[in-house]
């Protein structure tokens, strides 16, 4: 009886010791040095692993920054303050980045846009887009307002107001998740301090747009001629502003016949 106990504990004990020795040996042999820099950068990064930088997560980005494949300002969430902090750790100069925010290029809320049908399926833009008719909206490229972008936003920056999605630019951290998820590709980055924005993405001809929405871009190209610095280009039938040239004069918004170019003081 006692002998059994001794043998049992001896065998398990020896087994445990052998395993411990092997692991200990392996730990030394296979030791991978973690860069001190990397650890420090991981500490200052936001740590919510949103993937907005394009890396697998905050620790992957930290590694990329410390071995030089990513710039210190690669984290879109932390902005320029974080970039400075990281630059201090890596000893590199932080390039001052313009803060970007997401912007929904649609202004056709429930008052301004025409509805053509009723959609009563699951309340997700992706499912609504899977059937015909853009969620009941006459305009086939407008915001359906089922809030798939609201659901993916980790920062609570998006909300549905009057049936369309609106970005609160104070809360937006430019992770880009809403941009990827919008089935109508309505969202893109604009500079935080952008003075004017085109709130339409419809590629239809002017007459069609007019019948669908009172604030749609008619493709009249009036704004492109108004702009003193040629910052507005037509992307098919819809105007798009090149913010590297825009001087925030607001001449385009003044002349826009359908008022789809918005001056961003009230937004």
């Amino acid at each position, binding site marked *: 009886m006692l002998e059994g106990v001794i043998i049992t504990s001896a065998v398990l004990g020896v*087994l445990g010791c052998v395993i411990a020795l092997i692991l200990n040996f392996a730990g030394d042999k296979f*030791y991978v040095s973690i860069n001190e820099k990397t650890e420090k950068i991981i500490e200052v990064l936001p740590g919510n692993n949103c993937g907005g930088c394009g890396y697998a997560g905050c620790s992957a980005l930290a590694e990329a920054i410390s071995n030089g494949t990513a710039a210190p300002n690669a984290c879109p969430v932390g902005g320029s303050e974080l970039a400075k902090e990281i630059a201090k750790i890596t000893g590199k100069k932080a390039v001052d980045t313009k803060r970007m925010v997401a912007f929904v290029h649609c202004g056709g809320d429930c008052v301004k846009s025409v509805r053509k049908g009723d959609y009563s*399926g699951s309340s997700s833009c992706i499912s609504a887009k899977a059937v015909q008719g853009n969620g009941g909206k006459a305009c086939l490229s407008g915001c359906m307002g089922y809030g798939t972008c609201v659901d993916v936003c980790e920062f609570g920056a998006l909300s549905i107001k009057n049936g369309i999605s609106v970005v609160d630019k104070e809360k937006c951290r430019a992770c880009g998740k809403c941009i990827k998820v919008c089935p109508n590709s309505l969202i893109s980055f604009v500079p935080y301090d952008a003075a004017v924005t085109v709130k339409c993405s419809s590629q239809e001809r002017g007459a069609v747009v007019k019948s669908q929405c009172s604030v749609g871009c008619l493709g009249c190209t009036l704004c492109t001629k108004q702009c003193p610095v040629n910052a507005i280009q037509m992307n098919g039938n819809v105007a798009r502003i090149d913010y590297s040239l825009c001087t925030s004069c607001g001449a385009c918004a003044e002349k826009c016949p359908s008022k789809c170019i918005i001056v961003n003081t009230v937004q």
Partner: protein
Amino acid sequence: MFKDLLFIMLGSALVNNVVLSQFLGLCPFLGVSKKTDTAIGMGSAVIFVITIASAITSLVYTYILVRFNLEFLNTIAFILVIAALVQFVEMFLKKFSPPLYNSLGVYLPLITTNCAVLGVALTNVQKEYDFITSVANGFATSVGFTIAIIILAGIRERIDEKAVPESFRGTPITLATAGLMALAFFGFKGLL
């Protein structure tokens, strides 16, 4: 011999599917099946670990436990061996195969507590499989796990976009789905 091996593998991959008919490894099955790509990651990590674990546990059983007449210790000894093995594999991969480590990294530590691994080791012992059969059985079982988790992940991705009744959202509908999958897999009983 080869025919027997094939039958054992078919049996443990489909007919006696580790999750859907033996109800082992349910925790990762439900936890890591939200997206297909994470399910594939978990599945491949499980294949990797279970195959190696069944080889090692088979050796430990025949050369240590049987020798000292300590067969009753199999559960505790296997847990010890599997936990250490997972640790070792993690260190090894980190050093020699960073890409593989990066893709499996998150899932490897989770597998230590995956009862499917222990389940396979104990089944091997119960059915008195020899070394090669154990490894084959382990591999087939983990392939079965991977099949099940990938199917569930695919279904869950689709369910996410459907109008599920409020009280069924989340875990309940997932469990109901898993139950229906188990029923469907029951149909494989006719294979053998």
